[in-house]
């Protein structure tokens, strides 16, 4: 027997899905045809676009699922159970939102991890290193074997550290749900729209996340995850550099080393130039002192020489001389300087 309500929902979902796909297709379209423009990227598998829209699509999927299955509570239904269904599925926005940015940050790393792990397995070292720890190596390829084992061990450590971090993220999600229930249970609280419910859930989930993110456990897990990823990356870089050296190509370490020396030289140059100007300044100060001393000596010698004349003039009637331009300026030698 036909169920008009369910048929409507199904039809609507199909329509909505088509609309979403149409929207993304439209977003991907090139504007006006430009004969000099590179060919457009294929619509399918447009990784950047999918990543950009992941959060938005997560919300959209969640709204559809909620509308189709759960937004019409039957009288007397347990709203807590209904809430779990709304936010517990794979389309729940937390997975989309947090999973999106997390994978965006770690995606290239994950891809690298898979290829390196595969290469290590071919060599037969990855499993050994992971299960039994490093085994002694010997022969011509000893160094390569050791490095391969170290990389395999670092990869495993990184996977474990990331899992520990993800566990805390999942805990934040669970606690966010509990907080949401608490908020909804507050007296007088009523939610009458999907958007209203979503916004309330975001508040609850962010509060729970912030509490966990500020815990010592999270701090340790975060540091461990970053360090583990860096160890893997460092070992990968080392192996890449060895390949570059064999091919006669400059490596990043060499370029970086040159940069370090250049920066040190620039500092030395600036310091010596500043030092030279300080030396000049000292010399100028010393010369000024010498000139001042000489002036004082000259002034006292002049005073001695003019003393008899002064004594003689004191007997003559007093006459106030008018200052000349020369005497005015000589009275303030410092100002002239």
């Amino acid at each position: 027997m036909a169920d008009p309500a369910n048929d409507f929902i199904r039809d609507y979902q199909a329509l909505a899905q088509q609309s979403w796909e149409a929207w993304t297709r439209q977003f991907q379209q090139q504007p006006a045809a430009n004969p000099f423009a590179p060919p457009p990227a294929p619509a399918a598998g447009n990784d950047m676009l999918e990543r950009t829209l992941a959060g938005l699509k997560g919300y959209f999927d969640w709204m559809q699922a909620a509308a189709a299955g759960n937004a019409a509570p039957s009288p007397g239904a347990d709203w807590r159970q209904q809430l779990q269904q709304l936010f517990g599925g794979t389309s729940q926005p937390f997975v989309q939102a947090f999973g999106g940015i997390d994978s965006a940050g770690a995606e290239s790393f994950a891809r690298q991890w898979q290829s390196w792990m595969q290469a290590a397995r071919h060599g037969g070292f990855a499993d050994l290193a992971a299960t039994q720890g490093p085994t002694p190596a010997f022969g011509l390829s000893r160094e390569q074997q050791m490095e391969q084992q170290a990389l395999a061990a670092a990869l495993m450590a990184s996977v474990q550290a990331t899992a520990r971090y993800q566990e805390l993220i999942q805990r934040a999600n669970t606690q966010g749900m509990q907080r949401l229930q608490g908020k909804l249970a507050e007296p007088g609280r009523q939610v009458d729209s999907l958007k209203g419910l979503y916004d309330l859930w975001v508040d609850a989930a962010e509060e729970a996340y912030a509490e966990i993110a500020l815990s010592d456990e999270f701090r340790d897990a975060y540091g461990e995850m970053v360090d583990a990823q860096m160890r893997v990356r460092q070992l990968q870089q080392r192996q890449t550099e060895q390949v570059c050296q064999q091919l006669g190509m400059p490596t990043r370490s060499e370029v970086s080393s040159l940069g370090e020396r250049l920066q040190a030289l620039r500092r030395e140059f600036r310091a010596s130039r500043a030092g030279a100007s300080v030396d000049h300044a000292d010399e100028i100060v010393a010369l000024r002192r010498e000139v001042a001393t000489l002036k004082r000596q000259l002034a006292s010698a002049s005073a001695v020489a003019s003393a008899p004349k002064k004594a003689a003039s004191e007997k003559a009637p007093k006459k106030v001389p008018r200052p000349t331009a020369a005497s005015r300026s000589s009275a303030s030698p410092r100002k002239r300087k």
Partner: protein
Amino acid sequence: MQTPLRIDPAKAIADIAAFQRKLAAGMGHLRDLREPEYANTPRELVYSEDKLKVWHFTGHGKATAKTPLLIVYALVNTVWMTDLQADRSMVRNLLEQGEDVYLIDWGYPDGADRWLTLDDYINGYLDRCVDVVRERHGLDAINLLGICQGGAFSLCYTALHPDKVKNLVTMVTPVDFHTPDNMLSHWCRRMDVDLFVDTMGNIPAGLMNYVYLTLKPLRLNQQKYIGMVDILDNPTELENFLRMERWIFDSPDQAGEAFRQFIKDFYQGNKLVKGTLEIGGRTVDLGLITQPVLNIFAEQDHLVPPDASRALGKHVGTTDYTQLAFKGGHIGIYVSSRAQREVPPAIHQWLRQRD
């Protein structure tokens, strides 16, 4: 108990349909929009060195302030947050108040800048920028406005070169990096920074942005874009939104050595408030800052918690210390309409009384 969920199925369907309609209608606007420009307040280049540039904003009238103001921005993100859009430009507002404004644009570091240290930035670049402005105005000392990490740099600089700074303004500046609500500090406390920088070299901007997004993952990675759907049919609002997106994600890499030192000494060691910080072999003593200080912080700042900024009052040596709390967040303090009304006039008034 009565259910708090009162979502009418018909309304839910209608909401989804409305969401779809907004998306579809907004598509045209989104595709037609060009890359949003910043305010681009008229300016002249007065100094450049490596990738750094010092801009002098010319404005429309003559500055009434006797002492020029040099803005020292953070190394993370670009300096154009201070001149984001015509009606939300801190620089433009300061000019209108009568300030003579200069700005250091640090540029985009690349591999050649990998070995720049904090000494190179503070006693090198910053000192030479200050000298350029001092010489242009024939002054012994100028006013500094340090923003976020640039505020921490300005504090170090003022403590090390006190004769060259007349008044110091700090905005959303972290001083005490170990307040309990500082999430960034908390996360990097246990990581091996030496391993991190030795491996990464310069720190990619994308990685920095990723970390900032994870401070509030749901709000910043999803809820914000759901909100964008509501403004898709409003070209002006959409352009403003996209301009902010441009500023957020068009950000520079971090020079490796400077990053290493900043994380180790500031975030992990909290040496600025402990008095054990050394830049270029000299100890940075905040107690030696005797210039007037205006410290502005944002009450809802999730990057630099208010207490991290408030701590400055306990550590500077000046007797002329003013603190201003702004009702908003780390970004709103530059671009919100409240900020336009409150922040530049407050800075100008404070400086004018000390000009």
